[in-house]
Structures are given as C-alpha cells and as structure tokens.
C-alpha cells in the first residue's frame, strides 16, 4: 500500500494519524493482509455470504411508547452543550 493510499484510508476512517503511526500501520497491515491472502484461493462459488449466525428477520416491536432517556440524560455526557443542543464546530468552513 502506498503512503497516499494509506493517508486516504485514514481520511475515510476519520482518523488523524501521525507520520510514525502511518509507518507502523503500513508495515503491520502489510504483514496481516499477506497472511490472510489464503482466503483468495478458496473456491466459494455458489457459497452464500453469512452475515449473521442466526436468521435475521425484519423484526418489529409493538408500536407502544416506552420510557426513554430524558434530554438532560442524553446530553449529560456531551463534550460541549448549549441548552438542549450539542455544540459542534462549523460544518461549512468559515461559517462560524
């Protein structure tokens, strides 16, 4: 994997990585992915992908209101809060 590919991957993963971390991850991912390359040789023609160990039907709960978190409880751990809202930096740069 090239450095540019790795940096793109970190961007997709929304991770800030220091140059030393990128170097280390590049080496480690290379080793791990090489070890896992045996999967490519397995014949999986007509083998369905298994997404879960149990059948997952589209389950619905009864349409009944149940107790839920209060606004205060939901916001108590917010790193920044104003009234009943989370505070975030500008989503559009320059639009504070």
């Amino acid at each position, binding site marked *: 994997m090239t450095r540019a590919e790795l940096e793109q991957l970190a961007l*997709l*993963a*929304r991770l800030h990585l220091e140059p030393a971390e990128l170097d280390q991850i590049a080496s480690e991912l290379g*080793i791990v992915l090489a*070890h896992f390359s045996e999967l*490519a040789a397995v014949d999986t023609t007509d083998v369905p992908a298994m997404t879960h160990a*149990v059948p997952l039907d589209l389950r619905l709960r009864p349409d009944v209101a149940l107790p839920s978190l209060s606004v205060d409880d939901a916001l108590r751990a917010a790193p920044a809060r104003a009234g009943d809202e989370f505070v975030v930096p500008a989503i559009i740069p320059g639009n504070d």
Partner: protein
Amino acid sequence: MIELTVAATARAIATGQHSAAEVVDAHLARIAKCDPAVGAYLAIDEAGARAAAEIIDRMRDARAPLPKLAGVPISLKDVIVTKGLATTAGSKMLAGWIPPYDATVVEKLRAAGAIVLGKVNCDEFAMGSSTERSAFRPTKNPWDPTRVPGGSSGGSSAAVAARLGAASLGTDTGGSIRQPAAFCGVVGLKPTYGRVSRYGVVAFASSLDQVGPLARTVEDAALIFEAIAGFDPRDATSLDEKVPPCPFGDVKGLRVGLPHEYFDGAGNVDPEVRAGVDRAIAALRDRGAEIVDITLPHTHLALAAYYIVAPAEASSNLARYDGIRFGHREPANDLLELYRKSRGAGFGPEVKRRIMLGTYALRSGYYDAYYKKAQQVRTLIKRDFDKAFHFCDVVLTPTTPTAAYRFGAKASPLDMYLGDVFTLSCNLAGLPGISVPCGLTSERLPIGAQLLGKPLDEPTLLRAAAAIEEVCPIGSPP
C-alpha cells in the same frame, strides 16, 4: 466468605449464615487489599454495593422471597454499560463517561439479586487477548503476576481467580471469555449468538459479540447464564427461544468429537496443554462418553475470515465515537478536523489498526475480495460444524495453544492474533462454547479445555464441562 461460590453464597445468605452486607464487606476488603497487585478493577462501586446488600438483608429480615442470586457479589467487564457508574471500554475515548442506563444483562442480574462490586479491566474496546491493550494498565494473572490474564475479558478472569468477586460477566467476540478463563483457571461460557442480549454492551463486532459468565465452577457459570439469557426486544438479534434449565447429569453415551485439525494442525499445541486436554478426554471417556474423531476442514481459514469480518464491523461500529455526543473531544477548527483529531487522540494503537484494517476491507473495489469472501468462508466453517454435529454432540479442543504467556511476549499484532486460533470458529459459526480448567502445567499455570456445542445446547456443554471439572481440580492461585 471470599471463597464461597455463587451457589454457596446465595445459599449462605438465604439461610442466614451470612448477611449480604457481610459478604459485600468481605469482598470490598479483599479488593482493597489484593487488587492493587492484580489490577483487575477500573471502578469500584462501594456505595452501590452496600446499598444493594442492605436491600437484600431487609428482604431476608422481612422473610420476603429472595431472588436466586440474592447477595452474590459480581464484577462486570467495562464494556457493559452501568447507570451512574463509569464505563470506559478500556479506552481513553470513554474515560469519565457515566452512562445514563443499565445494559439488559445488568438489569437482569440486579433483578436476580446479584450485587455489582464494580467494573473490571479489558483490552480497549475488547480488541486484544491479554489486557495489554487496555488504555489504563495491564491486569496481572493471579497465578503468576509476570504473565497476562488473557483477554479481552482479562479483568474478569483475574478478578474471579483472585477471589475479588464470586463471578464476572465478560464478552466474547473471538474467544474473549474462553481464552482468559483458560489462562486464569476459571470457567468461561460463551453462549449461543443471540442467547444473551447485547443491549447496552459497547459494540465491537455485532455479528460475533456475545455476553457470558466467568466463574469458579461450572455450576456457577450455569446459574449466571440462566439469569442473563433470554429474549430482549431491544436487541434485534436476540433469539426468542426458551432458556432451558441446565441440570447436571452423567455423560454416558454423550458423543464427544475430536477435530484432528485442532490437534495436528497449525495451532502448535504445547505438549503440556495437550496432556491437560488428554486428561479431559480421559475424564469423559471414563464416565461413559463416546470419543469420536471428526473433521472441521476449513478451520485453518478461521483466523483470516475473523480478522476481516471483525475489524470491518468494528470500523463501522466505532464510527459513533466522533467527539460530538459523548466521549473524548479535541479542539478543532472544523467538523472533519474534530472527528479526525478526537478519534486520533482517543483511540489506542490496536483500535486504530483494526479500524484501518476494517476500512480497507470495506472500501469500494475491495469489498468482494475481502469482506464478502470472508463471509463466504464463514459459511463454509458453519457448514463444517453442521456436518460434524451429525456424528457428535459436543466438540472438544484445547482452548489455547499455550498456557498464559509473559507480558510483552506477543509484541506483533499477528503473533497476538495467532493465539486466538482455537476460539474464533465458535464465534464465526455462532455456537456456544465453554472453557473449563483441565490441569496445571509444570510451572503451575492453568490449562483450559474447550467444548463447543450445537446452537442453543448450552445444557449439554455444561454437563460435559462438569464431568471434566470433577476429575481435574486445579485449586486456587498461590
């Protein structure tokens, strides 16, 4: 009192031999004295435990019927959410987070009368096999403090082995209950996928995660399992199946399958571990079980499949930690920078590695080659078990290739991953599995035997494990 099992504690309190307050005080004193050397607990809830004990004692004084686990002191892996009690998942990302609700398993245990002593250490977001990946500190193995307790539920296994609670809840995504149980000489049960609610459990890999007990006896593991299992409408993968009682009985006629891939394959089983597992096999044979050779031919692919599926799911699940609603936040000028800096600072190296691996496997153009392929191999592994269970009722293997290793011995990620080789298939196939002690090495380190069962057949697993436990007592850590 600290030596009492779950079953004996509940009996002692119900009969008035001890009060719940006495039991809690004895355990809190033990934690204060011994945990600094073990490092199992990340948070201790003294006030909550004492208040819960008082309620149990008042019920008993009023001759009210006591619930099944009344007064039993337990700990919880720190990925299990507890109302009003810090939950960190072993990560700086969640340091200081006080959840506003209890996980379903916590609600169930409290309703059964169990008393939560506190939260115990684990590898960060349950990603690791030694607790060395905890952001706070490693936990030490009570049998030898120079060695790891296993992981990721290493705080749970160490706490139970060191008598810092009668039992603990852990989570198992690729062996994280069974492997630490084996390393610390306790019993660890990973229930069938869907058997126990995951509501309120910090998600790692949602198609694999399962909550289960670690305890000092098979009977205790069964008691905790019965208390936490069952349908939960708040978990879309929760199975709406009755939880049968787990009666113990003889194993006469039980067919025990030995997959040669686990004994002769790439696992490189340590000879002393092999000898311990041979004792477990002999124990079952002597009690009338039928030992049969079976094959699980895709076993060698489990490691690769797991380490694609689990990081892929983790990379998605951990997207929620973005510094907005809860968790660590770094100062930033715009939203993207806030995400990246907060996650870069909040997550540790193993978590970042797995997020990167998962993102790689899921990205456009690579999905079919990695994630889909791994899921197809998962089907092949499940089919192996389906076929094997035509010839046997349970599968017996070593839990781990070696006994507990020294801190720092598995420095490279791949070395660490290879240690999980015997426990991963169980999660990929969604089966129940249990690790039960089956002896000590010449260095007096515990050895675990692993039993894997048919879906929803925890009672048979527990019955077979009890037969092994009966003839392989290992005693207590020094």
